């Protein structure tokens, strides 16, 4: 009997142990230390929001090896379009990402001749007119074609006073807005993206970055005040960094720059007039502080080479230096940091482009020649749900998901903000203050404190008034007794003198 009980107990314990190890194996899959930033801006370990699902090569898709897949775009039909730069082709992959549906090796021009691509590095599909826009870099042109491979329009170097004719025209990224205006990022232009009307007319530049006023530039400005015009003309001009990539979401165009020295304008949200909505935002994109690499003796600062806006409004930024994806919500609060530089699945050697679709992230690598697919984890799903509700203004509905996030990761700063906002909305001021304090959110704390003070005064109004009256009476009494004492003293003195 005893032996049997022992056996049963051991069996149960071993089962539990097995379960434990199996669970931990699932969560330890990331080939890097997942981290996030705490309220002091220091990196701390965090839970993974995405896990690497698989890494897809050209052979997996049945089209032979890819060579430098430098852009990926998820189209309206659910298919993915990859600019296979080294093989001079565009690949269409189905939405499950296991089979190439079609490859575009060549296109047919309006006059019937065949035309080949040469190092195409950008591809975009418009949902409105169902055209494909290809940045055909080495042919110095942008092709607008339909899905059957017939070219609708060919945009070449513009003949315009604004466009310096000595500059080459090498488009690397292209997008089109709802009205059919075409925006082209050129690899040697720092004055913004070239903008074309729907019929291919060059209309100007759009969304140039600002020159960041570093100490050197300010010094140059004062030096130039004392220079002759000839000398000024021969000096190198300080130009802003160019746009590296962009994405369009609704009426806004998001741009990024891969400059590692610039901290302003690394990510911009531009409206139709080209005004940056994020200009006054204090958010830092990429890693807060560059890491010093002792083996190479250089600083590893984030270089954001591609940007993607997910359907729920989250901003995904791809960092080439460290091979990381930084995901922000639409208010630029950091949600997750995914990926690394490594050879394993989930790591990159040279991350090039990024796309999101549903709960997955797709990243192309121009050195591994793969597309890595990341899938949202359970934790990531909760965070996304909560942040989506929060950004929709449904703070109270977002409360439970945020609390669940905190149960899983008590260091997740964004969640404290969410809880504080929810508690503030529902009038639980004391708790809102507590959570705002934990999130370092001074503005929310201030509002919660204002409400708390108002509540306190309302609750204790009679006591406060009574206290005030008593204090007044007490003060008056003290003053009177003092005066009497003084008068008595003076009287005493005068009587002394008289005597």
């Amino acid at each position, binding site marked *: 009997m005893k032996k049997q009980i022992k056996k049963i107990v051991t069996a149960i314990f071993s089962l539990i142990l097995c379960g434990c190890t199996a669970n931990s194996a699932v969560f330890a899959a990331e080939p890097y230390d997942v981290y996030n930033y705490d309220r*002091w801006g220091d990196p701390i370990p965090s839970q993974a929001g995405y896990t690497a699902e698989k890494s897809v090569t050209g052979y997996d898709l049945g089209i032979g090896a890819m060579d430098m897949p430098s852009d990926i775009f998820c189209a309206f039909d659910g298919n993915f379009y990859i600019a296979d730069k080294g093989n001079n082709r565009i690949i269409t992959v189905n939405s499950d990402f296991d089979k190439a549906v079609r490859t575009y090796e060549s296109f047919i021009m309006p006059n019937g001749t065949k035309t080949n691509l040469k190092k195409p590095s950008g591809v975009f599909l418009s949902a409105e007119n169902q055209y494909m826009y290809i940045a055909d870099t080495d042919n110095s042109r942008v092709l607008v074609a339909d899905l059957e491979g017939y070219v609708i329009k060919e945009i070449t170097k513009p003949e315009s006073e604004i466009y310096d004719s000595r500059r080459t025209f090498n488009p690397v990224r292209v997008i089109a807005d709802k009205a059919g205006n075409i925006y082209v990022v050129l690899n040697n232009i720092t004055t913004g993206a070239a903008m074309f009307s729907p019929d291919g007319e060059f209309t100007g530049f759009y969304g140039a970055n600002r020159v960041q006023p570093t100490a050197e530039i300010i010094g140059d400005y004062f030096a130039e005040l004392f220079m002759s015009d000839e000398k000024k003309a021969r000096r190198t001009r300080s130009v802003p960094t160019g746009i590296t990539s962009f994405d369009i979401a609704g009426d806004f165009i998001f741009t990024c720059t891969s400059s590692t020295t610039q901290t302003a304008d690394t990510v911009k949200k531009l409206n139709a007039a080209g005004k940056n909505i994020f200009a006054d935002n204090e958010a830092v994109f990429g890693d807060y502080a560059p890491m010093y690499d002792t083996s190479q003796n250089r600083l590893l600062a984030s270089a954001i080479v591609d940007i993607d806006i997910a359907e729920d409004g989250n901003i995904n930024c791809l960092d080439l230096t460290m091979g990381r994806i930084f995901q922000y919500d639409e208010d630029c609060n950091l949600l997750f940091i995914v990926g690394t530089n490594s050879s394993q699945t989930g790591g990159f050697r040279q991350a090039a482009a990024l796309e999101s679709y549903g709960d997955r992230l797709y990243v192309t690598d121009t050195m591994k020649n793969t597309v890595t697919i990341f899938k949202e984890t359970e934790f990531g799903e909760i965070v996304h749900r909560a942040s989506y509700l929060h950004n929709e203004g449904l703070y109270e509905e977002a409360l439970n998901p945020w609390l669940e996030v905190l149960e899983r990761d008590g260091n997740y700063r964004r969640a404290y903000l969410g809880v504080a906002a929810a508690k503030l909305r529902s009038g639980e001021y004391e708790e809102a*203050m507590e959570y*705002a*304090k934990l999130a*370092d959110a*001074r503005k929310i*704390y*201030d509002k919660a*404190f*204002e409400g708390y*003070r108002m509540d306190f005064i309302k609750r204790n109004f009679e006591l406060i008034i009574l206290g005030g009256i008593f204090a007044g009476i007490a003060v008056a009494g003290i003053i009177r007794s003092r005066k009497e004492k003084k008068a008595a003293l003076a009287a005493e003195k005068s009587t002394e003198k008289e005597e």
Partner: protein
Amino acid sequence: MMELSPVRWVAHILRHPVDGFEDMRWKKSGSLKIAFFIVFMLFLANIANERLYGFNHYIPYDRIFNVVPYIVKSFVIFGAWTVGNWSVCSLLDGEGKMRNICIYSAYALIPYTAQMFINTILSHFLIRDEYVFMAIIRIIGIVWSAVLLFSAIRSVHQYSATKTIAAIALTIGAMAIMLALLVLFLSLIQHVLIFFSTLFTEISYRIRS
């Protein structure tokens, strides 16, 4: 007339910023104990102002607590002021003794210290939109202290107004020089200490092996 206790003298000076110090000098009053107490309160006020402030007005970096900056902001600065003023004014025919400079300057710091405490307390009752009240109190405290300090230096050395201003400017210069030398000295000491500690390690390794 004016037979006041040391504490009553403090009140008298605060209420008579222009000629209060002259009266005190005339009566040869003023207590060193109270002066040190005021500087100690300044030290506490500095800490309170940084660490106990209302969260909606100021977020401290509350991960570490290092007392050295607060000591520098109160004791070291005050000491440098006293020594600097004494050295400058003994060259400029000042009549003040070290003891008196210390006492008079400390008395002048009362409104500034009080302002810090009052604002720290108020910051727990006021929201950010009402910050202007705290700003007013702050300005009053600083201006009051400045006026007191001016008249303190003037009466302790029996200077004219222009000479007082010159003396104060020179004192600030002397303070800067002193603090720079202090930093230099500290880093020198540090190097010497490091030298001896390496020497010790080196020798101890040799003995062991």
